[in-house]
C-alpha cells in the first residue's frame, strides 16, 4: 500500500533507464539527499562530525569499493587497509609535490594511483580464487605497509615517520589541516560519497556490473557465454581500489590529518571494512551504507553505554566490543547471509502488502 512498484508507467527509454526507476525510491532518495545537503550542515558540530558523521561517510566509500570486489565480483580481499594507505600516501606525495594542485584533484589522482596498485595485486586473481586469493591480498597488506613505514621516500624523510596533511582550500574554505571546520569536512566527504555511490550504482547495473556478477556466480560458465575474465576481474580490482584509495585519501587528509601507516591502516582496518560489507549485505549498494553506519555508530553507542553510563573501564568495553562484533558476524552469516540490506528488502515486502496482508 505504502510502497508500490506497480502503476509507475514510463513513456520513454530515458525514464526507464534512470538511476531509480521506481517513483517511491526516487522520492526517498531526493529526500535523503536534501536532508544530507541542506539540513545536516545546519546542525553539525565538531563532536558529531568527528565521532560519527565523517568516519561514516569515509568508511562508506571504502565499503562501497570492497563490496564491488567481494559482493559483485566474488573476489575476497584482505588488503583493504593497505589500499587505503596507498590512497593516503599517494595524496600526501601529490600534495607535497604539487602544492598548487586543488585538493579535489589530488584525492581523485590518489584514487587512480591506488587503482593501478590494485590491478597489480589483482593479477594473481586470474589464476587463483577463494581463500588462496585472500592470502595473496594479505601479501599486499603486509608488503605495502612495510614499504610505507620503512622506505623514507614515502613519508618525505620526516623524522617521526608520520605524514601530516597541510592546509588546503576548496573555494577559499579550508577543508584539510587544523583550520578545517566541521561543515567543510562534512561537505567534501559528502560530495565524494554521493558522486561515488551514484557511480557505483550505475556501474553495477550496467554491462560491467553484469559481467562481474556472472564471474561471481560461476566463472567458467561466464567465460563460456563470452565474458572476458581478465577484463572483468581486473576492472573490478581497479574500480574497487579506486574507491578504497579515495576513502584512504579522505581519511588521511580530511579526518586524521596525520597518520602512520602501520597504525592507521593495519590489518584491523581491512577486517573492519570487510565486516561492514558482510553485515551490510554482500552485493548491495545500500548494504555498504547500512554496514558502515552499523559499525561506526555501534561502538560509539556501546562506549557511551558502558564507559559513560555504567562507568566500566575503557579496555573492558573495547574487548566486549570486539567480542560483540565477532558474534554479530557469525549471527549475520547464519541468520541473514545477505545482511541488513536483506532485512530492508523484507521490510519493503511487508510495506507493499500493508495494511492488508494475506
Amino acid at each position, binding site marked *: 500500500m505504502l510502497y508500490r512498484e506497480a502503476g509507475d508507467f514510463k513513456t520513454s527509454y530515458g525514464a526507464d533507464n534512470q538511476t531509480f526507476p521506481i517513483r517511491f525510491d526516487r522520492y526517498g532518495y531526493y529526500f535523503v539527499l536534501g536532508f544530507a545537503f541542506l539540513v545536516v550542515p545546519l546542525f553539525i558540530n565538531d563532536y558529531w562530525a568527528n565521532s560519527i558523521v565523517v568516519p561514516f561517510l569515509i568508511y562508506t566509500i571504502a565499503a562501497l569499493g570492497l563490496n564491488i570486489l567481494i559482493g559483485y565480483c*566474488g573476489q*575476497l580481499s584482505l588488503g583493504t587497509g593497505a589500499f587505503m594507505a596507498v590512497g593516503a600516501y599517494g595524496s600526501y606525495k601529490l600534495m607535497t609535490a604539487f602544492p598548487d594542485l586543488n585538493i579535489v584533484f589530488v584525492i581523485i589522482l590518489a584514487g587512480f594511483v591506488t587503482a593501478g596498485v590494485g590491478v597489480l595485486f589483482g593479477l*594473481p586473481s586470474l*589464476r*587463483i580464487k*577463494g*581463500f*588462496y586469493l*585472500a*592470502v*595473496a591480498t*594479505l*601479501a599486499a*597488506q*603486509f*608488503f605495502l*605497509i*612495510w614499504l610505507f613505514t*620503512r*622506505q623514507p621516500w614515502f613519508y618525505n624523510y620526516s623524522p617521526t615517520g608520520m605524514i601530516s596533511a597541510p592546509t588546503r582550500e576548496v573555494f577559499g574554505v579550508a577543508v584539510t589541516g587544523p583550520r578545517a571546520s566541521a561543515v567543510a569536512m562534512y561537505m567534501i566527504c559528502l560530495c565524494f560519497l554521493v558522486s561515488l555511490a551514484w557511480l557505483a550504482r550505475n556501474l553495477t547495473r550496467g554491462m560491467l556490473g553484469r559481467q562481474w556478477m556472472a564471474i561471481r556466480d*560461476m566463472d*567458467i*560458465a561466464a567465460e*563460456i557465454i563470452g565474458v572476458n575474465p581478465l577484463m572483468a576481474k581486473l576492472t573490478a580490482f581497479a574500480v574497487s581500489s579506486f574507491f578504497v584509495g579515495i576513502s584512504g585519501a579522505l581519511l588521511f587528509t580530511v579526518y586524521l590529518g596525520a597518520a602512520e601507516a602501520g597504525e592507521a591502516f593495519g*590489518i584491523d582496518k581491512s*577486517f573492519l571494512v*570487510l565486516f561492514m560489507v*558482510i553485515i551490510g549485505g554482500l552485493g548491495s549498494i545500500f548494504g555498504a551504507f547500512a554496514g558502515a553506519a552499523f559499525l561506526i555508530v555501534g561502538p560509539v553507542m556501546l562506549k557511551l553505554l558502558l564507559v559513560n553510563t*555504567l*562507568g*566500566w*573501564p575503557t*579496555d*573492558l568495553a573495547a*574487548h*566486549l*566490543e*570486539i*567480542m*560483540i*562484533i*565477532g*558474534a*554479530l*558476524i*557469525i549471527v549475520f*552469516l*547464519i541468520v541473514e*547471509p545477505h545482511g541488513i540490506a536483506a532485512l530492508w528488502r523484507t521490510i519493503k515486502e511487508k510495506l507493499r502488502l500493508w495494511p492488508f496482508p494475506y
Partner: protein
Amino acid sequence: MPDTLLFAMEATLNGLTAGVMYALVALGFVLIFKASGIFNFAQGVLALFAALTLVGFQSGQIPFSHLINAMFGTRLHHFGWNMPTLLAIPATIAVMILLAILIERYILKHLVNQEPIILFMATIGLAYFLEGFGDIMWGAEVKALDVGLPKGMSGAVDDMTFAWFGYGFYIDRLELWAAGIAAILVASLTIFSQYTKQGRALRAVADDHQAALSVGISLRFIWVLTWSIAGIVALVAGIMWGSKSGVQFSLSLIALKALPVLILGGFTSIPGAIVGGLIIGVGEKLFDFFMQPVIGGATENWFAYMLALVFLLFRPQGLFGERIIERV
C-alpha cells in the same frame, strides 16, 4: 670458512627452528581443512586462547574477574592458589574440547552446505569473538608462560659447532624442544589417523562427506573431534610461542603466517605443513640476512606472503596438495 657463510648457516638453523613453530600452527589448519573443508582463520586465536587459559589455570586467576569487578564493584583477581602444570594442561584440554563442542553446535551445524568463502568469513568472526572473549575472561596484559621447558642458549649445539667451525651457533633450547614435540605430534597424528577407528572415520569424511554419511559415520561427531584435535594442536603451539615471547595478542598475528606456509605446502597435506613451515622459516631468515643492507630490515613481515604469492602463480595446489580439478 668465511664468516658470511657461517652467519648464513646460523641464520638457516634459526630459520629451521622458527619454521617448526610456523608448522605447528599450520598443522591445526590442515587438520580442520582436511576434515571439514573449512579454512579455519581462527586457528591462531585458538592458540592464543589456549595459552591464556593455561596461564590462567596455572596462576589461579578467577575467570571474568574484570567483568565481575566492573559489574558489581568487587575486587576479585586470584583464587590464591597455583595449579600444577600437569593438572593445568588437562584442564585446558578439557576447555578446548568444550569449545569445540560449542563451535560445532552453535556455528558449524548451521552453516552446513554453505559456500567455503562464507565458512571462512564465519571463522574470521569466530577469531574476533574468541579474541575479545579471551581478553575478558583472563585479562589482556602480556603474561609469562612457564611450563618447565628449558630455555636459553643450547650449550651442546654451541660446543659442537665451535669444535667444527671455530664459531658457536646460537640456538635456543626451547626451539630444539619445539622441534622434538612437533615431530612427536606429527607421528602421533599420523598413527591416530591410520590405525584407529576414529582416525579412519576422519579420513573418510575428509574424502567424501556424502559417502561417509551413507556408511554411518556421524559428521557432527567427526567435526567435534577435528576441532578438539585442532584445539589441542593450538594448545601445543600456544605453549611453544607463549614460552618464547609471552602470551599476548601478537601470538594470533604470528599465526597468520601459517597461511603462506599452507599455500606452499598444500592445504591438505600434513608433511606439506612441516616442509612449508621450514621453507618459510629458512627463507625469511636468509632473505633478511642478505637483503637487510639493501632494502632495510623487518622484511619478515611480508616475505612469507610474497613468496606464497609468487608460488601461487606457478603451482596453485602447493607442493604436496591434491590437484585442483574443476568441473562445470
